[in-house]
């Protein structure tokens, strides 16, 4: 097993006893509805940070925003892929227990992916872009970043944006935006991305153009 770049605080570092998951959403039905509406708002207004109304406990290196999204949308039907930074015993135990989702090692087989460290985003074309007849059979990536409002500014255009939308992200690799251009070039195929700061989301559906 690869070494964890960030040691989970609540779990033994190596193959000791199984890690107990932390509590999930306090009120699963009502909380997941509110989280979903935040995700929907983020995806329908790309580039606008949407604060999450619910911040559940999160085992490091996962953030409350990432965990809220996974607990709301992932289940036994959605294979999940985690990058090396996010693959910790505590994170695995937490997601397996609360979502019951299969954890896959092949990124192309995943419907959801969690990128624990936005400064090293894997190639976007490693994930399922859908098929010409079924572009919806594509992956959604949750990319953990440090925050919004600082860092290089990009101008976003596309559906969900009235004229243009400025977006500044800190903790996101420069190479991401070049990869994003390639992703939008194959529209309607492509992956969709949710940038997650510890407490807010920014949606990047595949329709978003960068200038």
């Amino acid at each position: 097993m690869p070494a964890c770049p960030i040691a989970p605080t609540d779990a033994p570092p190596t193959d000791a006893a199984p890690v107990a998951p932390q509590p999930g959403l306090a009120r699963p039905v009502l909380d997941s509805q509110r989280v979903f509406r935040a995700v929907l708002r983020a995806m329908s207004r790309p580039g606008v940070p949407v604060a999450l109304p619910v911040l559940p406990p999160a085992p490091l290196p996962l953030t409350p925003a990432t965990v809220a999204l996974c607990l709301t949308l992932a289940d036994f039907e959605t294979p999940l892929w985690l990058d090396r930074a996010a693959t910790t015993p505590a994170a695995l135990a937490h997601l397996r227990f609360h979502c019951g989702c299969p954890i896959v090692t092949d990124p192309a087989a995943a419907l959801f992916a969690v990128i624990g460290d936005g400064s090293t985003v894997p190639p976007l074309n490693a994930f399922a872009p859908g098929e010409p007849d079924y572009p919806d059979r594509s992956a959604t990536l949750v990319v953990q970043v440090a925050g919004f409002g600082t860092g290089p500014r990009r101008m976003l255009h596309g559906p969900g944006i009235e004229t243009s939308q400025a977006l500044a992200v800190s903790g996101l690799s420069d190479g991401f935006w070049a990869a994003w251009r390639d992703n939008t070039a194959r529209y309607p195929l492509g992956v969709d991305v949710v940038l997650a700061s510890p407490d807010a989301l920014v949606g990047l559906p595949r329709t978003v153009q960068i200038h």
Partner: protein
Amino acid sequence: MTAAAPQPGLAGYNFAYLDEQTKRMIRRAILKAVAIPGYQVPFASREMPLSYGWGTGGVQLTAALIGPDDVLKVIDQGADDTTNAVSIRKFFATTTGVATTTRTAAATLIQTRHRIPETPLADGQIMVFQVPIPEPLRWLERREVESRRMHALEDYGVMYVKLYEDIVRHGKIATAYDYPVMVNQRYVMAPSPIPKFDNPKLDRSPALMLFGAGREKRIYALPPYTAVKSLDFEDHPFEVQSWSQACALCGATDSYLDEIITDDRGGRMFVCSDTDHCRQRTTAEGNSR
């Protein structure tokens, strides 16, 4: 078992009727629909406690969206007080306990059968459309495999031929409702059987528009500010209906009018199809007098 925190809604049922796994499945389909505007996302439509054809697609969308903070409005052909609207509004009032309204401006969530309110929609509002036939190519190509491939290849020539044949036969495009639109310059989409009068309201609307077809098991979407163009030709540009009369109740000349037969001797009147719009106008006039 210890008493859990009370959850609004109907005892013995989950909040908003659907189980949580179904809601997750629908929510994932909604997000993909928003990411690919105008593309019909297949979803595992459930049996609902109302028949196919009565808005099961819209009801499932609303059930996956609605929360205690929402204010729900339901209309049927523009009216808040017709059977379909009343029963769906009552369904959600019972299973969620949310507030309902007839006022367009006060609603956060508007489920509709075949109309878009006359009152301009605002950022943050969500429209849910009930859709009988989601596939705009279905009357031209009956095979699902073929129509899906035509969307993949952006092969929409047959749709233009159909509109052209209308012009040859009738001198104009005869389609008056469910008038096909091009979304974000990529997908041809059925706007559901709204009158073509409402098509311009789809273009770059600040509200999120979601479409649900329960029997046909499809969900599709128009994110806010999405370019929506009604199909037409340079020499036969798209036009909406117009009336020589004004609304008999409120005097509106800019709203969609229904013709009401008032007796068996040819008597008739034209009134606003949007009952809330009509009521707002008559109340405002009454106040100003």
